[in-house]
């Protein structure tokens, strides 16, 4: 079940979920069931692997596959603060939300980040089929002081237009959903349940 804006605010007040820099009720970033999140300054555009025309194959099933190493080697951080960053047609960049989120496992609330219609109309998507934020995201168990986590976005431009991305713009929307039941391992005191380690 998707939470309404009122339920989301109730959950925020009761600290069942955390969103840093959450806007007030009257802010245009709220809708009946969603809250807009904004773009942080750092953008990481991908280089063309191996140069133009080269065919480099990435094997994500490899035991040694380390996406952060690949991203660090094949992207260069840029900023979209100030004048903004131009997202060229058919290009793909990594970025982050400015807001940090925490969804404690025992709150039984998960979430999805989705694109905004206004950006979709001009060809901009904000994730590549991985919108789910699982319960437990941004939570450090037994450390309520932990500061929460930003959401990494995979932004692509499917259209023919050059799009300016700017720090602080509404870039995506988050939808909170109730989880039916408490996820495995979240019950206090049941951490020693026996199970087989056989594959």
């Amino acid at each position: 079940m998707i939470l309404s804006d009122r339920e989301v605010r109730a959950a925020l007040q009761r600290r069942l979920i955390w969103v840093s820099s959450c806007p007030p009720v009257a802010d245009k970033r709220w809708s009946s069931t969603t809250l807009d999140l904004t773009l942080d300054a750092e953008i990481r555009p991908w280089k063309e692997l191996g140069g133009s025309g080269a065919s480099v194959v990435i094997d994500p099933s490899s035991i040694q596959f380390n996406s952060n190493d690949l991203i660090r080697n094949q992207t260069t951080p840029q900023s979209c603060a100030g004048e903004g960053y131009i997202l060229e047609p058919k290009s793909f960049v990594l970025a982050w939300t400015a807001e940090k989120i925490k969804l404690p496992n025992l709150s039984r609330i998960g979430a999805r980040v989705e694109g905004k219609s206004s950006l979709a109309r001009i060809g901009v998507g904000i994730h590549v089929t991985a919108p789910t934020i699982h319960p437990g995201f941004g939570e450090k168990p037994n450390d309520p002081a932990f500061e929460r986590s930003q959401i990494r976005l995979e932004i692509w431009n499917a259209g023919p237009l050059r799009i300016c991305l700017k720090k602080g713009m509404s870039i995506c929307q988050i939808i909170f959903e109730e989880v039916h039941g408490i996820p495995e391992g979240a019950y206090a005191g049941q951490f020693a349940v026996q199970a087989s380690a056989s594959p």
Partner: protein
Amino acid sequence: MALVRCEVSEGLRESEATVKIATLEGRSEYLPVDRGMLVVEDKADFLAVRLLYTDNGKNAALVSLPVEADSGAHRVWVRLSELKDVRKEQEHGALI
């Protein structure tokens, strides 16, 4: 919750690290995490994870990772010797 031993390397941003965890099967799991999820004790790095099951017969534990690993795994078996500081979770309320 529990802490699982890990190797830490640079992340994409100052607030982020890349973590490598050794699984029971001898595989390495790589995942990007917030540095706040890490704990340093006795000069060793540990990642906060959720403990799901233990198999004392095999000296193994199934833990839930804070984010999906590069292999696609959300849960992995690790050796019990890789874990420390196993504690009960604090209770939260529920919204509904």
